[in-house]
């Protein structure tokens, strides 16, 4: 896979995620559900205030905020993994 195909694929992932995002379930996930059932949800502690807590932008509510958070997140992880890959591929031979 070339870098060009890579970024094209990342763009497709962005488009697919942003398209499906409005249909994503807001229901509690498996662990959150179990924590509610077994009454330990309240043990949760916030040790660090994440800038985009809960995949939302503080200044932008609703879909726009979520979509921008998804966009930033996808680009960031793709960039980090790509750079890490470059470092790991170095010295091969």
């Amino acid at each position, binding site marked *: 896979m070339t870098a060009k195909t890579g970024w094209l694929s990342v763009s497709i992932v962005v488009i697919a995620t942003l398209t499906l995002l409005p249909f994503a379930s807001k229901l509690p996930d498996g662990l959150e*559900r179990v924590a509610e059932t077994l009454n330990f949800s309240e043990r949760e502690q916030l040790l660090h205030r994440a800038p*985009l807590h809960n995949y939302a932008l503080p200044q932008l509510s609703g879909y726009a905020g979520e979509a921008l958070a998804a966009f930033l997140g996808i680009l960031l992880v793709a960039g980090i993994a790509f750079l890490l890959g470059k470092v790991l591929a170095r010295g091969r031979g």
Partner: protein
Amino acid sequence: MHIPDGFLSTPVWMVTDAAAVVAVGFALKRVSGKLEERQVPLMGVMAAFVFGAQMLNFPIVGGTSGHVLGGLLTALLLGPEASVIVLTVVLIVQAFLFGDGGILALGANILNMAVIGTWLSYGIYRWLESHWERGRRHGTGNKGAEVVAIALAAWLSVVLSAVACALELALSGTAPLTAIMPLMAGIHAIIGVGEALVTVAAVNFVKRMRPELVRGGRG
């Protein structure tokens, strides 16, 4: 199943953080200098895919939702060590930037989803596949066997992650093992069906589009 801070006792988060550092360090060492140039962009693509997929919760029964983890799929395309690294990158960004999963609990989450949900499930896939290969040589194997191996390993990746999560919470004294284990395993046995479907579909899709990418990290 990202564990937030506060759910794990100090000894449990300390041990799981240390274990995660060792496991990820081992993965980095194994893959360092061995990653092929053509796999580098795929590292970015898989990180993007896993992050996107983990935002897309789908509803299951009882007012609960789940999402795809993507560990086995990433391992099938990049090899298990590179997959551990990709999943770890996603989990670190989720914890620090998005508050999904705790900071002290990061090691436990890496251990559950990036190591057990990736490395172990890939090992299970390879084990199933070796039996399938042997069957094929004897003329008893069939084409569906590989799909079954992928589906089963993908399903197990979610269930075993959940089992590990339940064990950590029980060891922390957060909930009794007999209560939390059947609940976590049961819910994730349903979520795992989604993982199996997406993994089989994605592998088929990649095989059709870019057959050379599937199990490119093998060797």
